[in-house]
């Protein structure tokens, strides 16, 4: 019985505490750098698209909000023909970011995405692509991958030995 009275008193004292509410549009909350908000597609330091259209993000997505179509340029570099995220479905779980092998898809600390029309929440590749590398500054997938693309042959990637020449008998 006494504990009930004490509870009432303690709750009453909360009237004099500081309020924790952040008055959003006027007052912005401080979001940590790894906050999972709006999804972006990043570029490598050279300015090329990081995404290699491997579909892993689309597979990992629990709500199926990612749609893309892979294609290649003439030199064999894979990229998405279109890349579409339906943010009215997205639950910002971050699984796509974890699944991505090239750090292309990233979640950033931004959630101000209200729209009057639902269709406006479907973001195309041009809406998603940013001009920088996002959270991973120096990483360039095509520089470390042993795939031949235009301007880089086999064995020319970083920390990659040249391929064994099968025609030669020299060790």
């Amino acid at each position, binding site marked *: 019985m006494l504990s009930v009275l004490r*509870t009432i008193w303690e*709750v009453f004292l*909360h*009237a004099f*505490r500081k*309020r*924790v*509410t952040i008055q959003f549009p006027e007052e912005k909350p401080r979001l940590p750098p790894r906050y999972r908000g709006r999804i972006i597609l990043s570029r490598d330091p050279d300015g090329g698209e990081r995404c290699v259209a491997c579909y892993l993000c689309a597979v990992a997505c629990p709500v199926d909000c990612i749609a893309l179509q892979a294609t290649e340029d003439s030199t064999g570099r894979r990229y998405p023909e279109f890349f579409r995220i339906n943010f009215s479905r997205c639950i910002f779980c971050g699984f796509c970011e974890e699944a991505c092998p090239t750090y292309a898809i990233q979640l950033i600390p931004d959630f101000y995405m209200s729209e009057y029309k639902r269709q406006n929440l479907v973001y195309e590749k041009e809406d998603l692509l940013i001009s920088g590398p996002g959270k991973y500054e120096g990483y360039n997938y095509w520089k470390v991958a042993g795939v031949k693309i235009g301007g880089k042959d086999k064995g020319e990637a970083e920390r990659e030995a040249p391929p064994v020449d099968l025609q030669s008998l020299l060790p």
Partner: protein
Amino acid sequence: MNGLYQLAVVFGVLVVALTIAAGLIWLERRLLALWQDRYGPNRVGPFGLFQVLADMIKIFTKEDWTAPFADKATFILAPAIIVVTVLLSFAVVPFAPGIVVADLDIGLLFFLGMSSLGVYSVVLAGWSSDNKYSLLGGMRAAAQMLSYEVFMGLSLMGVVVLAGSFSLTAIVEAQRNLWFVVPQFLGFLLFMIAGIAETRRLPFDLPEAESELIAGYHAEYSGMKFGMFFVGEYLGIILISSMITVLFFGGWLGPVLPGIVWFLIKVFFFIAFFILLRAALPRPRFDQLMSWGWKVMLPLTLANVLVTGALVLAFA
């Protein structure tokens, strides 16, 4: 002229009671927010006051859906009963000298009778919805309100003995020297607990416990019919606060300020206290509620009546 004055009082009480009930929607949210370190509604208009208007527009324009499996007539009757009984109870509440709709000799009994008729609203709503959760809510409400009604009436008998009348105006006048909360502190506590149970407010909102019964007896209600239950609940809070003020805290009596102001101050204090209880206390289990009522409250109430009667006899 007298008839005109009476009419003005009736309309005044009606308008003020309904306005305060609507305002309580805002007040309750703001106060709960205050005690939970939040702001509550503060966007619509100054301090969010127009939130009330927004809510009213919303509830008036919502689809008023009657379930096809419901018992139509009873389903529609139920929300009307709660508002009617509570508003009728306001008829006997003396707000200030002269400002009372009907100064009945048996005002207190009238209040008790109306509050006991209020049970029908909940029970019939629960039954006519033809929904198991609603039925459970209605059953709980019937059991809870019947039990707590018993000592709600009995806890007031001490006041009646001291004042020597069932008329609420006479009871207030009898407190000119000493508020009845002092000699009848136990009665005050018991009446307040019973009053909370009677209005089905937290922590005794088991008939509509949302975590177990969805919304209990009003699960099938929508639109203005749901709004009637809402308004009925808030009117009930105002009524119980007014009754506590009248019976134990000297009604309109107070220095300097006019009577009606004192009355409103006291009523708002108790409304705020009810909201504080809601913010602070968890809901008991239903069997705890019932056994607490019958095994603790009822004996205490009877002892209170007995001791008060004996003392009055001894010193009178």
